[in-house]
């Protein structure tokens, strides 16, 4: 059974987005978009702070974490300065635009247009008091973990 699965092309991915920082959200979006570009079915499931990526009042303001992020190679004392997250985000944004990587709102719209499904996590929406109206129009629904597993059946699950 296992060897039959091995070597077979991936036909479906279900990607969980659990973080609300720029560096937490982009990898999931790139993987979802890349899946669709290869003809692979893709669904995105936003949970906990990942919900910010699809929340109307937040999705245009996603920032790089400048504190507690050793990968930035920035002294913590510098990272806490007012305006640093915005500055680093803007710097990265310019670099990404040059590489044809869209800003998060445009990227999510594009991924939705590619036929990928976007879903919010029921438990997280309950926790933060978020309803469907708070989420961007591309979101197809708020679903439970059980519904997520049913949707993910037969494919690969990626947690980010």
């Amino acid at each position, binding site marked *: 059974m296992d060897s039959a699965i091995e070597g077979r092309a991936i036909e479906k991915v279900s990607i969980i987005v659990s973080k609300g920082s720029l560096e937490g959200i982009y990898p999931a979006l*790139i993987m979802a*978009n*890349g899946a*669709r*570009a*290869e*003809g692979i079915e893709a669904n995105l499931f936003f949970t906990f702070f990942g919900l910010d990526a699809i929340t109307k009042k937040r999705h245009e303001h996603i920032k790089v974490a400048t504190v507690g992020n050793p990968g930035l190679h920035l002294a913590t004392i510098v990272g806490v300065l007012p305006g640093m997250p915005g500055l680093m985000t803007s710097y990265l944004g310019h670099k990404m635009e040059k*590489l*044809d*990587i*869209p800003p998060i709102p445009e990227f999510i719209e*594009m991924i939705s*247009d*590619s*036929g990928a499904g976007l879903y919010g996590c029921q438990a997280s929406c309950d926790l933060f008091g978020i309803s469907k109206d708070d989420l961007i129009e591309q979101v197809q629904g708020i679903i439970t973990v059980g519904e997520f597993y049913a949707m993910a059946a037969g494919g690969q699950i990626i947690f980010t």
Partner: protein
Amino acid sequence: MPTATYAGHDVLVNDEGFLTDPAQWTEEMAPQIARSEGIAELTPRHWQVIRFMRTQYQAKGTGPTVRVLGKTSGVTVKELYQLFPKGPAKVAAKIAGIPKPRGCI
């Protein structure tokens, strides 16, 4: 290197079936390549994308990404995926006889 026969001509292709020499491609080959990709008939909208891919390749040496296609080919991202369900940039490049675009976006 494998070869394929399209519209009565032998062409060189790579392991994924992309033409290795875009100069060997002619428009007569497109419908047959499309059928092998599951597209039964090429509509004028398909052709708009295919010709755009060729023009971009000739100008830049690489095929456009889906984002660029959606912004500049006159066909939206949504329609691109309806026309080429198995991946617009990839499948249109194959039908257009140009290399598969390499990129993560």
